[in-house]
C-alpha cells in the first residue's frame, strides 16, 4: 500500500540570478512499513525534503500525498491537525518543550488534539524507550540520548502514517546513536511504522530497506537494499 507519493517536488530559495534550487523535480513513492534512508552531502537538499514531507515547510511547486491526502492543499489549521495525527517528526536537537515533563512531551500531540491518552500504549512506548523512571523529569534534567528517546516517543504516540527523522543521532555519541537507531528500527518493525530517516552515517543507511541518494536537489540513486 502506498503511503507517500511525491510528485515533481521543487523548492527554490531566492529569486533570479541568486536563486538556489534546493530540490529539483523530485518524485518518488513509499510503501507502508518501509524504512527509507535519505543520504547525501551537506546542501544536497535532504533536510528540505524531509521538512516538506513533514508539512512544516512549503514547496515552491509539486505535490505531496500522504495516505492519499494532498497535504499542501490543506489550509493552515487542517495541515496542523494533519501533522499532529499523521506525522511524527524527530529532530537532531530533540526540540522538546522545556516546561513540560517527559510524559507531557511525549503525549503533546494527543494533548493538542484533546484526545485521551491510551494508557497501555503509553506504557508500552515508555518501557520500550527505557524512560520509566524519568516520566516527571523536565528535558533539562535528561541526557542527550534520553531527550532524543523522548522525542521518538512523541513521534510514536499517535501511530502516525509517517515518521520522519532528521539526523536523529547527529548530536549523540556512538553508544547512544546505536541505541537510538535500534529503537527506530524496532518501532518500524514492531508497529509497522513507515520511517524516513536522514543521515550521512553510512552504517545507519545500510540498515534501511531502501536508500535514496540526493545531490544538488536531485535523486541520483534509488536503491532497494532488502524487501
Amino acid at each position, binding site marked *: 500500500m502506498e503511503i507517500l507519493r511525491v510528485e515533481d517536488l521543487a523548492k527554490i530559495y531566492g529569486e533570479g540570478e541568486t536563486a538556489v534550487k534546493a530540490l529539483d523535480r523530485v518524485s518518488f513513492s513509499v510503501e507502508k512499513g518501509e524504512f527509507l534512508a535519505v543520504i547525501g552531502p551537506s546542501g544536497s537538499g535532504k533536510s528540505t525534503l524531509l*521538512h516538506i514531507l*513533514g508539512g*512544516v*515547510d512549503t514547496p515552491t511547486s509539486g505535490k505531496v500525498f500522504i495516505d492519499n491526502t494532498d497535504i499542501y492543499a490543506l489550509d*493552515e*489549521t487542517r495541515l*496542523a*491537525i*494533519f*501533522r*499532529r*495525527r499523521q*506525522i511524527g*517528526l524527530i*529532530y*537532531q*536537537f530533540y*526540540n*522538546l*518543550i*522545556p*516546561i*513540560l*515533563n517527559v510524559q507531557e512531551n511525549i503525549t*503533546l*500531540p494527543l*494533548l*493538542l*488534539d*484533546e484526545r485521551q491518552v491510551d494508557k497501555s500504549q503509553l506504557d508500552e512506548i515508555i518501557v520500550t524507550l527505557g524512560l520509566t523512571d524519568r516520566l*516527571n*523529569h*523536565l*528535558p*533539562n*534534567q535528561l541526557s542527550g540520548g534520553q531527550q532524543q528517546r523522548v522525542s521518538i516517543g*512523541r513521534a510514536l504516540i499517535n501511530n502516525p502514517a509517517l515518521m520522519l527523522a532528521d539526523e536523529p543521532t547527529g548530536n549523540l555519541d556512538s553508544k547512544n546513536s546505536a541505541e537510538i537507531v535500534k529503537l527506530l528500527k524496532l518501532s518500524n518493525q514492531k508497529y509497522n511504522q513507515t520511517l524516513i530517516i536522514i543521515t550521512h552515517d553510512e552504517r545507519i543507511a545500510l540498515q534501511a530497506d531502501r536508500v535514496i541518494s540526493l545531490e544538488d536537489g536531485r535523486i541520483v540513486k534509488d536503491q532497494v537494499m532488502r524487501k
Partner: protein
Amino acid sequence: MNIINKLTLRHLKLNKQRTIVTIIGVVLAVAMLTAVPVFVASFLDMMQRSVIADTGNWHVLYSDVPRQNIDIVVNDENTASAALSQDMGYARLDGSRNEDKPYLFLKSFDEQGFATYNLKLLEGRFPQKSSDIVISSSIAENGGVVYRIGDTIKLEIGQRHLEQGGNDLLLGQDHSYVEQSADTTGERFIPEYTREYTVTGIISPPSFEQYWAPGYTVIPFLDKNELAAGATVNISTAWQNVNKEANIHANELAEDMEISSDKVSYNRALLRYYGIIDDNLLSTLYSLAAFMIVLIIIGSVALIYNSFAISISERSRHLGMLASVGATTRQKRNSVFFEGLVVGIIGIPLGVFFGTLGMGITFELVQPLLTDVFKADLGLVVSSDAIISAVLLSMLTILISAYIPARRASRISPIDAIRQTQDVKLTGRTVKTSRLTRLIFGFEAELGLKNLKRHRRRYKVTIFSLVISIVLFLSVSSLSMLAQQSAELAAGSIPYDVSVFVTSSATAQEKMDFYRVITRMEHVDYAVIEQSMEAEAVVSGDLMAAATNPNAQSGKQEQTLQPFSMQFQIKAIDDAALNRYAQETGMDVTCLKDTRNPGGILFNTVTIRSADNKYTRMNRFNIEAGESLQFIHKINGEPGDYGTELQIIAVADKTPMGGTSLMDPDEAILFVSAEVYAAMQAKLPEVIDNTNVHMLIRSSDPSSLVEDIKEFQQQTSIANLIINDVAAANKRNSQVNTFINVFFYGFVLLMAAICGANILNTISTSVLLRRREFAVLKSVGMTPAGFNKMIRYESLFYGLKALFYGLPISFAMMYYFIYRSISNSFTLAFVIPWGSVIVAIIAILAMVSLTMLYAGSKIKTENIIDVLKNESI
C-alpha cells in the same frame, strides 16, 4: 571604548525594540520625577504671587519708625524695596449714603507704596506731590459721593475716639463704625487740622480696606523730605533673599531702629509659601510630593530592573564566552552599569525636557480653571534645584535598577554560558500547574500558565507593575469620589444659587419692596422671601429622636421623657413660595393662612455632628401632623404672656427651597404664612421691626442676575447689601476639584504608562525568547487557533493574577487609608467606585492582551523551519 562596552552597545542596538521601550520608560520616569518638583515650585510661586496681588509685595512691616531711622531699612543689603506710608487719620465724608462708612481714611504712600500695594489706577494719575490725592472708586459707587479728577477737596483731618470704661480709645480701620446705642455712647470724631488736596486719580478699592472698615481709602503722597522732625512712618519691606536668616535679620534691624518687637509684623500669608513659617499646607504639599516620588521610583525601578535583567539573561552567553577568555568579575559587572549609563545619557535629558514641557502644557490647559480661584496665573517655574533633584533621583533610580543585574552578571561563569543557565535551574515544581487548569481551560491554557511560571522573578515583577497601576488608579478614584461626597455633605448641598440680604437699615416694608422687584427679574427661576423670628416651645421628650434629645444622654427612660425648651425659628415665606410649598407637602394653602387656627409646616430633617466629629442626617422629631406646640417669646430675656399655639399641619423633609439639611442642630424651623406670622407679631407688646428678611433665589444665570441686582440697587436707597453667589462659589470649588483631578489622574496615567512599558518589555521578550518552542509546537501540530488560545490564556492569567492581588489591595487602601481618614469627619457609607473598578479590569486585560497579541503576531507568521534552523545551537 573597551570590547565589553562595545559588545554591550551592539547588543542594545540589536534589541532595538526593547532598548527603545526601556528608554521610553526612563524618559517617562524622569519626566515625572521632573514634573513633581517643577509643579511644587510653580505652585508655590503662583501662591506667592497670588498673595502678593492680595496683600501687596512686602514681607515685613515696621510701624512707627522715627524719621531719622528710615535709612537703616532702606539701605540694608537685604532690602529689595521699602515703601513708606503713614496712617494720617479720618475725615468726614459728608453725604455718604452708607451709614456704616461715614469717613474718608487717609493713608499716605511714597512712590514705592503704590507699587508695593498693587494699587490699580482706574483713571487719572498717581499723586506726585503732597497736595495730590487719589481716591477709591467705592466713594462714588458705594457712598454715593462723587468727586472728579481736578476737584479740590478740603479735609478736616482727625481721629475717631471711643469712651470705654473711662478710657479714651483711638479707633482704626479694623474697628467698624460704632453707633450710639443703649450700651454705648458711640464714637466721636475730633478733627485736628485741615488740608486741601487736588484729586489726581481714582483707584479701585485697595485690598487692605475691609468691607466693614468705616472709612473709604484716599491716598495722598508721602514726601520723605517734608516729614516733620518727630514724625514716624511705617515701612513695608520686601526682602532680597527670602529665608529664615532674613527673618532673624529683620528683628535685628528693628532693634537698630529703636522700635519694639510689637511694631514689627510679618506678612504671614505670604511667608508661609516660602516655608519660613511652619505651615500645614506646605508640609502636606511636601509629603505628598515625597510620596509621589517614592511611587515613581518604585514603578520605574521595576521597569528598568526588569529590562536589565532580561538583557543580562540574553547576554549571558556573550558574558560567559568573555569570561572564558579572561573577562574579570568587575568587567562583567560594569557592562551592566555601562548599559545603565547609555540608557541614562539618552533618557535623562529627554525626560527633563518632556517633564518640563508637559508641565508647561498642562499649566496652559488648566489655567482657565483657576482664573476665579487664584489671583495669579499658574506659570512654569523651572528652578535649578528642581532639575538637579530630578536628575539625581533619576540617576539613583537607574543605579538601583542596575545593581542586582550587575551582580548577577559578575557571577556568570563560562560553564553557565554553555549550559544556558535558566533552563538548567528549571525544576518540575516551578512549572507545576493544577490538573483543573487543563480540565477547565484546555491544554493550551495550561501551557500558557506554565509559561508564566517559568521565569518566576520576571513574572512577579510584571504582576507587581500591574498591581501598582491598579492600586494607584483605584485609590485616586476613590479619594476623588469620597472627597466630593464629603464636600457635598459638609456644604449641605446648598439648594439655591444666590442669596440676597439687605444689611443697611431700612423698614421691613422697604426691604420687602426691594425683594419683590428682584423676584420679577429676568434670570430668576424660583425665589423665596423669608422673614424669621425666634420663638421657644416646650417639647415633650417622647417627641424627639434619641440623637437630638438632650435628655436622652443619661440613658434613663424617665429622664428621656422629660419635656424641655427648644429654640425655633418661625419663618414666613411669601405667598407664591407658600403655594408651592403647600402643594409639595400635600396641603391646602387656605388652612395655612387661617389665623384663628394658626399652624405651619415643620421642617424635620437635621444634620447632626456627633462627639467624634461625624456628620449624620436624620429626622429631628418623632412628630405627626396634627400635634400642637405652644410657642412663647422672650422679651429682654423674660417670658411674657404673648404666646401662640401653633398646629403642625404637615411635616416636611425639605425646605421651600428644596434644602434637606441645616447645619444648626439646636434650632428647629417652622414655616408659616405671612398672615400667621403677622398675627403672631401682633400679640407682642412692641412690634420688633424685623431686620431678618432675606431672599433665596434659584437662577439659570446667577452671574447676570447678580449684576442686575447690583444695578437695581444703585437706583434705590438701599446702600448695603450682601449678595452671596453660591453658584460662583460652587463653580470655584468644582474647578479646584477638576484641577486636582487633572494632576492626580495625570500622575496615574503616567504611572500606568511606565508599568505598561514594563509589561510590553517583559511579555514581548518572553514571547520572542520562546520562538523555537512555538515552532516545535507548531511542527507537532498546534493549529493557529490553538496558538492564539495559548497566547490569550497566558495574557488572561497575567491579568487575572494582577487583579487577584490588585483589587483586594486597592479595596484595603480605599477602606483603611482613604475612607478611614475621611470618615473621621463625615459619616459616609463606604462605597467602592465600581465604575472605576470596571475600568481598571478592562484596562488591565486590554493592556496585557494587546501586548501579547503584538508579540504573538510577530511570531505567528514566521516559518517554522527558519526558526528551528536559526535557533539551533
